[in-house]
């Protein structure tokens, strides 16, 4: 299954990309996290809270341009072709 990751701000600087396709073995956010964290360790440091074994509270997930309110990593399912982004708090000009 292939998903498209979108990278903004810190994520763009870390990856050096604005988007990329990732192949997942499983349709869960856990698998996506695992792929990304293995590929980009600074992203894990940026968004993962090791104490609570979850994404940090200030991290939002967007799937297909819609904010996901329940970001319980264990339950969230992805579909082939989904466009996914992790976002940190906004700061307009």
């Amino acid at each position, binding site marked *: 299954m292939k998903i498209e990751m979108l990278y*903004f701000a810190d994520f763009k600087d870390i990856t050096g990309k604005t988007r990329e396709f990732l192949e997942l073995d499983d349709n869960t956010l856990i698998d996506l996290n695992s792929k990304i964290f293995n590929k980009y360790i600074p992203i894990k440091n940026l968004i993962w809270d090791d104490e609570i074994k979850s994404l940090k509270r200030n991290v939002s997930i967007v799937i297909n341009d819609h904010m996901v309110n329940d970001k319980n990593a264990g339950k969230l399912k992805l579909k082939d072709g989904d466009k996914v982004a992790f976002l940190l708090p*906004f*700061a307009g000009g």
Partner: protein
Amino acid sequence: MSDNSFTQVKSGIYEKDEINLSNILFSLKNHPEIQEVGSILTFTGIVRNTSKDGKLIRSLEIDAYEELANQSINKICKEIREIPGIIDVIIIHFKGVFDITDELVHVIVASSHREEGFKALRLTVEKYKKEIAVWKKEVFLDGNSEWVH
């Protein structure tokens, strides 16, 4: 004035310098309900030479998740237009790389009277600051940089 000639400047994310305040005001002066407007207020956010904690800044980068930011901008504009006395509101936020004093954002509120216009302008500014998917990176004089969250 014919409504057919009115082309509204659309709120949203734009590239740096893609549009300026004069373009927006010109558009607004051709609004079909302009004769009901007694006040046009504008807010322009520009690049300051210091960060919040006082570090000197060389430049600023704005990144945006355009689809998401435009959704939020349209939602804010819809909410503000529902306030009695508000005829129209436009939010233009730029993205790209900016020098000190460059314009980053314009908010324009057209209202029947100034009081509701001032309130709506402030509310719109507070909302866009929190709700739109935009990020800024401060590039400091010493060459370091950081995204503000």
